[in-house]
């Protein structure tokens, strides 16, 4: 934690309102991007954001001085998003059998290099909920398959196949744009 962050955290522990607002303003832009990635609609993103920050303010006592504030905020938001989506019942639990993904080769780390990030964001948000969550957690947050499997209560192989499907869908949506460019 950076010194100015730990200062802010201390003030937030005292329930200092100004400090809470400062913390919010510091993290709002990056966290809102995260929330948008996980949700289909802007209203859902705002709900997750709201619940996540309330949770952060409530539990800021548990944050140790050695922890990274950014990583802590992120994990709170991810957890909030997951439980939100679960509560919304939009979380369709369809376990996809590992169908043949052999034809899927188009995606690699640089697949979307030339595509505008707003368009990628839009495509991610169009993904089916489970694929969206898995893609976000693995590809953009850096969780391992096992961690995601544990958090979502599914098997690692289900994580894998959801990820593959997500990637394929993204490529299908974004590849034409790339060609057009």
């Amino acid at each position, binding site marked *: 934690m950076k010194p100015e962050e730990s200062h802010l955290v201390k003030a937030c522990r005292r*329930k200092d*309102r100004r400090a*809470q*607002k400062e913390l*919010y303003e510091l993290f*709002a*832009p*990056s966290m*809102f*991007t995260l*929330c*948008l*990635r996980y949700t289909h609609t*802007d209203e859902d*993103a*705002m709900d997750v*954001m*709201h619940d996540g*920050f*309330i949770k952060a*303010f409530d539990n800021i006592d548990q944050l140790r001085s050695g922890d990274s504030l950014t990583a802590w905020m992120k994990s709170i938001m991810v957890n909030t998003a997951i439980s939100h989506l679960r509560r919304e019942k939009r979380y369709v639990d369809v376990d996809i059998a590992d169908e043949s993904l052999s034809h899927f080769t188009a995606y690699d*780390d*640089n697949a*979307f*290099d*030339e595509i505008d*990030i707003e368009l*990628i*964001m839009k495509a991610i948000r169009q993904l089916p909920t489970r694929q969206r969550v898995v893609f976000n957690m693995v*590809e*953009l947050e*850096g969780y391992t398959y096992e961690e995601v499997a544990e958090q979502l209560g599914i098997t690692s192989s289900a994580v894998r196949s959801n990820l593959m499907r997500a990637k394929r869908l993204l490529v299908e949506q974004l590849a034409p744009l790339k060609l057009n460019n």
Partner: protein
Amino acid sequence: MSSLRERFENHNTQPDPEVWNRIEKTMHHRTVVRRTVVSSSVALVALAAAALFWLKGPDTKPVQVAQKETPEVVVASNPVSVEEPISAVSEETMPVQSHEQMPKDNSPKPSADNNAVESRPAQSQPVASVAAQPVASVAETPAHQNVSVDPIVATASQPTASERPVVSAATTERPAAPAPKLAQSDENKAGSTDLIVWIPNVFSPDDEVAENKVFKVKPNSEANIRSFEMYIYNRGGRQVFHSKDINQGWDGRFNGQAQPTGAYVYIIQINDADKGLITKKGTVTLIR
């Protein structure tokens, strides 16, 4: 080009200000609710206390006041200052007229001789006058006090005109203010202690009978002791023993060294479930 993850990490989206408004509203709402709950519970407790007070009637008032004061007594008796417990003993016993002629040698007074005598000429006058006041008030109600159980009682001197300097000598080190409080709280509690514990006045570590070897307070069947604390000081005013366990008595040793024959001052504080806070001071004689 950087990876997709890095691109997203550097990609920020400003949320609608409405989000913060809602967060603030939620936080504020909860603070208000919490405050209301706290203040109403405080009011409830105050109301309950007032009702209890009213039910018990005015008679109970002095006792409650005395109990409230005892913590101060506790604080006052712990400090390094030796004169503290000793002078307290002498004041407690003052009202007992019959003992006033007893020789002063038994008393733990020596500390007064050691430390305070030098300052006597300078300080005796004002202190004497202050000390005399509480004593006088205590002396008016000595009849129903059974303080006399303690052998040490003799120590104390009745504040006759001639002896006043001695009293003042014993109290010189102590601020004048706590004196009335000590006297008062003891007055209120004197006698009640004896009902729930028995404090021996002599013990002998070299004795053959195990029971006599240790100075230990014995609670009787009526006692309902919640907490216990005992301090023992030697004639020099040094604390030679401290215990918070009523079952742990003093074996006459200090830092592993057998202490000499003589009188030792004890201060015992008991928090009894039925009788409240009780402070008992006195001396015990160690015999070898």
